[in-house]
Each structure stands twice: as structure tokens, then as C-alpha cells.
């Protein structure tokens, strides 16, 4: 029964990602990414890391996609409903890109089949305790550096998007 939920999330993630990269309207692809990120966050729960799943849901669905919708609104001339991405014609470039994508998938699956572990995943309890302890002992320096980097990134973002005075 619980496996069915896992397979549903896996199918939803891959199908939403496929729809997001194949649709012609950019706002539809962003809303498909909502479903995709939600499903990925559900998959992270199945990988025994519920804290990462909650953080993923908050950062991606609550943050990045909203910022992306703002980016689309600020960078399109037409209204959101009829922003068409590209022409219908399927060119040689598209076939080559599709070929490269399928080849990459086959190569990745081949190496995972050869070297990937086949360990079953058992429930070991919540991971919040070990993450909290590791974040303040072993990984304290990267944690603080990451906060500084975030601060620098957001200051730089505000500086770039600011209007010029002249």
C-alpha cells in the first residue's frame, strides 16, 4: 500500500517534469514544476529524510517558484496567458538535443546498474536530531559560510535590480 504512494510520487515527478519541458506556454511549465517539486519532496520523505523534505518544500515551492513567476511577469511583453515560447517546427537541433538526453539517461542507468547499491530502505526514525547535532558540531563552519554567502547573494541581487539614478 505504501509502495503505491511511492510509485505515484515517482510517476508524478517524472510526468510533471516532462510536461514542463515540452509545453509551449511558459506559465504552464512553471505550474507543472509546482507539481514536480511537490512530488520530489514526497520522494524525499520516502528516503528517510523528512527534514530535508520539509526544507525542500518550503524553499522550492514557497520560494523559488514564486520568484520565477515574478521573473516571468517582469520579463514578458504580453500578458501571462498567451506567452508562446517558440515556433512549432521541430528542427535538427531538437532531434540532437533529444538524442543527447536519451543517451545521457541510458549511460546513467547503465552505471547505476553496474555500481549502484541495492540496499533496501528501512525506517529508522526522524532525522532531525542527527541533522541538528551535525549542523552545530561537524558542519558548523560550512553552515556559517553558507549564511554569509546567502547574505552576499541577496545584497548583490538587490544591487543588480536597483534602478539607475541617471
Amino acid at each position: 500500500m505504501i509502495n503505491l504512494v511511492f510509485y505515484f510520487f515517482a510517476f508524478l515527478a517524472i510526468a510533471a517534469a516532462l510536461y514542463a519541458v515540452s509545453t509551449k506556454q511558459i506559465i504552464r511549465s512553471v505550474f507543472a514544476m509546482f507539481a514536480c517539486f511537490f512530488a520530489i519532496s514526497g520522494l524525499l520523505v520516502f528516503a528517510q529524510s523528512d527534514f530535508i523534505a520539509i526544507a525542500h518544500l518550503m524553499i522550492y515551492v514557497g520560494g523559488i517558484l514564486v520568484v520565477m513567476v515574478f521573473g516571468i511577469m517582469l520579463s514578458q511583453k504580453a500578458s501571462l496567458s498567451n506567452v508562446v515560447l517558440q515556433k512549432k517546427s521541430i528542427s535538427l537541433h531538437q532531434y540532437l538535443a533529444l538524442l543527447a538526453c536519451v543517451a545521457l539517461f541510458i549511460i546513467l542507468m547503465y552505471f547505476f546498474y553496474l555500481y549502484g547499491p541495492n540496499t533496501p530502505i528501512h525506517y529508522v526514525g526522524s532525522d532531525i536530531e542527527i541533522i541538528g547535532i551535525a549542523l552545530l558540531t561537524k558542519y558548523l563552519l560550512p553552515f556559517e559560510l553558507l549564511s554569509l554567502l546567502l547574505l552576499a547573494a541577496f545584497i548583490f541581487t538587490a544591487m543588480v535590480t536597483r534602478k539607475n539614478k541617471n
Partner: protein
Amino acid sequence: MDINISHFLFISAALFAIGFYAAIRRRNIILVLIGIELMVNAAVINLVAFANVNTKANAADGKLMALFAIVLSAAAIALALAIVVKVYQYFNTINPDQIEEFKN
């Protein structure tokens, strides 16, 4: 059938390939960014799945790497979208094929 790590590897390989296609094919910078986000998510799924291999000594390593990757991609997306807005104000398009000169 039990869920094991190879299931996660299959999903992450599929997501990585789809994101790669979006990143190299799309005619819109925002769709390229979405493709890059899909690739980062595939890497995060892999890191979290491999954190289950050895649960004794360093159980938090893979999970913390995933957390750091999520935060770094959030910062990268914020910066990239700011640059996209400025590029649109300067060139009036966000099609990467039409942006040809960066000299002022």
C-alpha cells in the same frame, strides 16, 4: 517489492536527463533555469538516497550535502533571475539566441 535505493537512482536519472534537455534546448532563459533546477533536484535525490547506505557513523553527511545544495541553488536562482530582469530591460528579449553582444 521493497523500496530500495535503485528506485531513487532511476528517478534521479530520468529527472537529470529531462533537465539536461531543457537546459540545452530551450529558447527561453527561464526554461533553462528550470532545467538547471531539475538537475539540482536529481542530485539532491541521489545524495539523500545514498545517505541510507551507511546509517551508523556518518548518517547526516548525505543529508547535509543535500541541504547545502538546496540553499546554494536558491541563491543561484535569485541571482540568475535578477540578471534575467536586467537583460530583459537592456535587450527587450530573453531568448538566448537573440542576445548577441554584451559590449556597451
